[in-house]
C-alpha cells in the first residue's frame, strides 16, 4: 500500500514536475486565505497604503496647462498652435466634403462654392475602385455610398468623413515617422514600445479631459484623441515591415549608390508596402471606431446621430446611423486593401495626359459637370430628402414584439446565469487575497518566460493594488473573464466551421467586419430593453464586440496547419473528427490563444462603454472621472485597465511562443 503510494508520488514527480509545482502554489494560496486573521493586509490592500498617484497626476496636468513655460512660449500656446494648424486641414476637408467654401469677394458679398455633390463623390470613388481593382470593387464602394444617400445619412456621413480624411493620413504619417525612427535606433524602439502599449490599452475616455484642455473644445481635440488611439499599429507595422525588407534589396540599394534618405524612401518603404498597408488598414478601422467617442467632444457627424437617436430610444434611427459608420469603414477598408495588393503599373511617357490618366480625367469631368448642373437642379447637388427611405419603424416594432412575447423567457435565462454563475464567480474573485493573485501571476511569469517577465507582471499587478483600484480591477477582470469564456465558446466553433468551408468563410468575414465597426451603443439599448441594466447586459455587449478576433484567429490557425501533416494523419487512418481534435486543434492552439489575447484587449476597450449600463468597475471609474473632469483619477484608472491588458498579453504571448517552439511551428 505504502509502496504504491510512494510510487505514485515518484511517478508524479518524474513525469509531471509541473503538477507538483502547481499543487504547492495552490496550497500556498489556500494558506493565504486562511491567513486572513493573521495577515489582513495580504488579503485586502490597506487603504492607508494607497499612493495618492491620481492627485499627483492631476497637479502635474494643472501645472503643465497653466504654468509650464517652454522658454519662448508656454506649453498651452504650443498645443494650441498645433491645434490651429490642424484646424486648417479640417476646415479644408470640411469645405470640400460638407459645407462648401465661401470665397469673399470684397464687401459683404461672398461666392459660395458648393461641396462635392453626392453624385460626384460616388462616381469618383467608384472610378477609383475600378482603376485600382475591378468592377466588383467599384460596385461595392458605389453601393456603400449610395446607402448613405438613400438612407438620409449623407450630411452627417460627410462630416464624419471629412474628419476621417484628415485624421487617417496624419495618423499614417506620424506612425510611419515614429516607426522609421524606431527602426533606425533600437534604443528608441525600446523606449516607445511600452508607450505604444499604453496608447492602445488605456481607454480613450481616460485622456479625453487633458486632450480637451490642451487642444481646445471641438473637432481638433476629437481628432487628436482619434490619432492617439489609431497610431500605434502603424508604428509597429512600419518597424516590422522595415526589418523584414530582404537584405539583398538593401544591399542592392547601397551598391546603386543611394544616399541614406534615398535608401529609406525610394527603396525600403516601397518594398515594405504590403506590410505597411496592414498598418494603414488598422488606422482606418480604429479611426472609425472612435467616431462615437469623438462626437461626444465636438466632432458631430454620424457618431452624434447615433447618440442622439438612442437617447430618445429611436433604436431604428440609431441602427441606420450606426450601419452608416460600418458602411464607410467597409468601403474605405476594401479600397485600401485593394490598393495594397495592386502591382505598380508602368506607363509610357509619350502618350498625352488624358490617355495616361483616363480615370482621373473622367472623375474630374464628372465633378465639374455635377457642380455646374447642381446650381440648376438641386437634386444633383443634394440627394432629395423625399427620396430617402428608412427601416427604423421595423426595428423598433421588432424589439417591442420580442420584449412583449419573450421577455419572461429571456429573464428566466438571465436570472439563472446571473445568480448561479456570474455572481458566485464575482464573489470568488473579490475574495482572493491580492498578494496571492500577484504571487500566482509572477509564478506563471517565471514558468513561461523567466525572471524578467515575472518581475514585469508582478510590478504591473502591484500598480493596480498600490493605486487603490484593486476591487474595481477585480470586477473588471470578472466581467472580461466571463465574457472571454463565452466569446471563445461561441467564436471557436464558428472559426472551425469557417476554416473548413470557403463559402462560410466569406460570409463570416462580412459579419466580423460589421461587428467590429458597428458602434456598441447601437445594440446596447435594445439589449437593456430585453435584459435590464447590469452585468448581464454589459457582458452581452462585450461578447458581441470582442468575438471578432477569436473567430478570425481560429479560422487562420486551422488553415495554416501544414497540409502534409493532414495528409499524414489521413494516411494513418484518422477520421475527420480525429483530425480536427487530435491534429488541427493542438497545432492551431498557439494561434487561437493569440486570438483569445486579442479578445481580451477588445473586451477591455469596451469597459468604459459598459459603465453606461451601470457596471461598477474600472470602466465606471474612468467614466466618473471624465464627467467630473478629474484628470488624475481618469488616467490612473485607465492605466490600471492597461495593466490588466498587458499582464494578460505578456503571459499569453509567452505561452504561445513556448508552445509553438515545442510544436516546431516557429
Amino acid at each position, binding site marked *: 500500500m505504502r509502496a504504491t503510494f510512494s510510487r505514485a508520488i515518484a511517478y508524479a514527480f518524474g513525469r509531471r514536475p509541473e503538477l507538483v509545482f502547481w499543487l504547492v502554489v495552490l496550497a500556498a494560496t489556500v494558506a493565504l486565505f486562511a491567513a486572513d486573521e493573521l495577515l489582513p493586509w495580504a488579503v485586502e490592500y490597506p487603504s492607508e497604503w494607497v499612493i495618492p498617484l491620481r492627485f499627483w497626476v492631476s497637479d502635474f496636468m494643472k501645472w503643465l496647462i497653466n504654468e509650464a513655460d517652454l522658454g519662448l512660449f508656454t506649453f498651452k500656446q504650443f498645443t494650441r498652435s498645433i491645434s490651429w494648424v490642424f484646424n486648417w486641414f479640417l476646415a479644408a476637408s470640411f469645405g470640400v466634403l460638407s459645407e462648401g467654401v465661401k470665397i469673399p469677394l470684397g464687401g459683404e458679398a461672398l461666392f459660395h462654392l458648393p461641396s462635392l455633390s453626392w453624385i460626384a463623390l460616388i462616381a469618383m470613388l467608384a472610378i477609383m475602385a475600378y482603376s485600382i481593382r475591378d468592377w466588383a470593387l467599384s460596385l461595392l464602394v458605389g453601393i456603400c455610398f449610395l446607402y448613405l444617400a438613400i438612407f438620409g445619412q449623407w450630411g452627417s456621413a460627410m462630416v464624419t468623413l471629412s474628419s476621417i480624411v484628415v485624421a487617417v493620413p496624419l495618423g499614417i504619417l506620424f506612425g510611419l515617422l515614429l516607426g522609421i525612427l524606431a527602426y533606425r535606433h533600437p534604443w528608441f524602439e525600446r523606449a516607445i514600445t511600452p508607450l505604444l502599449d499604453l496608447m492602445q490599452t488605456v481607454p480613450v475616455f481616460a485622456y479625453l479631459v487633458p486632450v480637451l484642455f490642451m487642444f481646445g473644445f471641438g473637432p481638433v481635440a476629437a481628432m487628436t484623441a482619434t490619432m492617439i488611439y489609431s497610431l500605434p499599429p502603424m508604428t509597429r507595422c512600419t518597424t516590422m515591415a522595415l526589418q523584414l525588407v530582404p537584405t539583398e534589396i538593401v544591399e542592392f540599394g547601397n551598391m546603386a549608390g543611394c544616399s541614406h534618405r534615398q535608401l529609406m524612401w525610394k527603396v525600403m518603404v516601397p518594398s515594405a508596402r504590403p506590410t505597411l498597408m496592414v498598418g494603414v488598414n488598422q488606422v482606418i478601422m480604429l479611426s472609425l471606431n472612435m467616431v462615437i467617442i469623438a462626437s461626444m467632444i465636438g466632432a458631430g457627424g454620424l457618431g452624434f446621430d447615433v447618440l442622439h437617436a438612442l437617447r430618445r430610444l429611436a433604436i431604428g434611427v440609431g441602427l441606420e446611423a450606426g450601419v452608416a459608420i460600418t458602411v464607410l469603414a467597409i468601403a474605405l477598408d476594401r479600397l485600401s486593401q485593394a490598393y495594397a495588393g495592386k502591382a505598380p503599373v508602368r506607363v509610357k511617357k509619350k502618350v498625352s495626359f488624358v490617355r495616361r490618366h483616363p480615370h482621373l480625367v473622367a472623375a474630374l469631368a464628372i465633378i465639374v459637370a455635377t457642380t455646374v448642373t447642381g446650381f440648376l437642379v438641386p437634386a444633383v447637388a443634394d440627394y432629395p430628402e423625399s427620396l430617402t427611405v428608412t427601416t427604423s419603424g421595423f426595428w423598433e416594432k421588432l424589439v417591442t414584439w420580442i420584449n*412583449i412575447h419573450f421577455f419572461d423567457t429571456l429573464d428566466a435565462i438571465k436570472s439563472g446565469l446571473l445568480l448561479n454563475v456570474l455572481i458566485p464567480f464575482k464573489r470568488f474573485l473579490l475574495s482572493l487575497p491580492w498578494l496571492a493573485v500577484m504571487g500566482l501571476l509572477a509564478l506563471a511569469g517565471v514558468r513561461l518566460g523567466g525572471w524578467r517577465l515575472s518581475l514585469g507582471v508582478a510590478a504591473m499587478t502591484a500598480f493596480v493594488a498600490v493605486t487603490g483600484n484593486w476591487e474595481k480591477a477585480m470586477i473588471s477582470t470578472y466581467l472580461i473573464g466571463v465574457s472571454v469564456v463565452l466569446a471563445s465558446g461561441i467564436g471557436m466553433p464558428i472559426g472551425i466551421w469557417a476554416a473548413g468551408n470557403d463559402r462560410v468563410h466569406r460570409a463570416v468575414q462580412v459579419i466580423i467586419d460589421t461587428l467590429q465597426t458597428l458602434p456598441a451603443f447601437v445594440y446596447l439599448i435594445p439589449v437593456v430593453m430585453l435584459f435590464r441594466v447590469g452585468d448581464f447586459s454589459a457582458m452581452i455587449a462585450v461578447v458581441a464586440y470582442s468575438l471578432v478576433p477569436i473567430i478570425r484567429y481560429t479560422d487562420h490557425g486551422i488553415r495554416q496547419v501544414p497540409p502534409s501533416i493532414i495528409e499524414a494523419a489521413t494516411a494513418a487512418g484518422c477520421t475527420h473528427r480525429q483530425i480536427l481534435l487530435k491534429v488541427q486543434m493542438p497545432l492551431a492552439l498557439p494561434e487561437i490563444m493569440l486570438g483569445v489575447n486579442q479578445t481580451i484587449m477588445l473586451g477591455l476597450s469596451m469597459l468604459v462603454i459598459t459603465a453606461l449600463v451601470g457596471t461598477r468597475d474600472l470602466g465606471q471609474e474612468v467614466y466618473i472621472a471624465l464627467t467630473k473632469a478629474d484628470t488624475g483619477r481618469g488616467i490612473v484608472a485607465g492605466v490600471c485597465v492597461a495593466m490588466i491588458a498587458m499582464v494578460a498579453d505578456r503571459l499569453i504571448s509567452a505561452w504561445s511562443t513556448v508552445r509553438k517552439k515545442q510544436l516546431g511551428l516557429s
Partner: protein
Amino acid sequence: MKRMRRASMLNAIKSAVIMVMIGACMMLSGSALAGDPESKDPIIITLNDWTGQHISSYIMGGVLQRMGYNVEYVQADYLAQFAGLEAGDLHVAMELWATTAKQAVEASLKTGNTVDLGDTGMVGIEDWWFPLYMKEKCPGLPDWRALLECAEVFATPDTAPKGRYLSGAATWGGFDKERIEALGLNFEVIQAGSEGALFAELKAAYDRKAPIVLWVWSPHWVPYKYKGEFVEFPRYTDECYNNPSWGINPDKAYDCGKPRGWIKKIGWAGGDKKWPKAFQAARNFRLDNESMGRMVAEADIEGRKVTEVVDEWLSENENVWRKWIE
C-alpha cells in the same frame, strides 16, 4: 431662399468671369436686424445631449443671429463643457440644472473665468416616478407611504424581496440610498449608468405593463410620452438634508423628496466684454416648462427636426424674444 439664390447668382455673373465658368451661387452674409454686433467672431453655444437643451440653444442662437451675430454650435459633454467655457473655447451654455450640476456650476463660477447668465425660468423637477398603471398594482400611490406596503411588487429576482428602484448614472448623486434608509423603504438602488439605459428599461417595462419605479425629470420628453406621476415624498427643504431631527425620521437626514431647482445659463467671462449686447440677451432669455415640454414633445415624439420646431417658435413668439434684446 430660392429667389435670393437666383438673384445673387446674377450678381455673381456680373462680378467675375471665372465664377461663371464654374457656375456660381452667391449669398449675402449677415442680415443685420438690431444694431451692429460688437464683434463678428462667432459666439459658440454648446449642444449637450438632450433635446430640451438643443431647443434652448437654438432659440438663443436664432435670436443672436437675428441681432447680427455669427453663431456656431459645438457638441460638448454636459460636465466636460466647463473646461471649454473656462478656457474661452466655448462661450454660452444654455441649461445647467441645479439638480445635477449645482456643485460644478459653483466650482466653475468660483474660478472667475465663467459668469452666471441667470435663470432660464424653467424649473427642474427630478424624483421617483412610476407609470400610471402601477396605481392598480400598488394602491395608494402617488403617496410615498404606499411604497412601504408594496415594495415586493417592484422586486426582480436579483433584488427580491426588496423592491428595485432604478437610479441614473453614478455621478448624478441624488441621495437615494440615504432616502430609502431614512424613510424605511424596503428598496434597493440599481444604477442604470446612463440616460439611454434608464429610459430603455422604462420603455420595455411600459410596453409590457410591468412594475417599475425610476428616476425621471421634467422638462423631458418621458413624462409627456408616458403616462405617469412623481411619487409624492415629504416636500424638500434645506433643513431636511442638513438636519437629521427634521422630518419623519428623527435620527436621519434625507427623509424627503429631491430639491426642485433652477436651470441656469452660464457663459465665458470674456464674453461680457466682447459681445455685451449678446450676453445681455442671453441673460434675458426666459422660457417656461410648459412651452419647453411642448417643443420637446414635438421634436422627440412626432419626430420633427429641432431646428424646424425652433424656427416655428421664433416666428410665432417674436413679441417674447423681442423683449430680450431691448
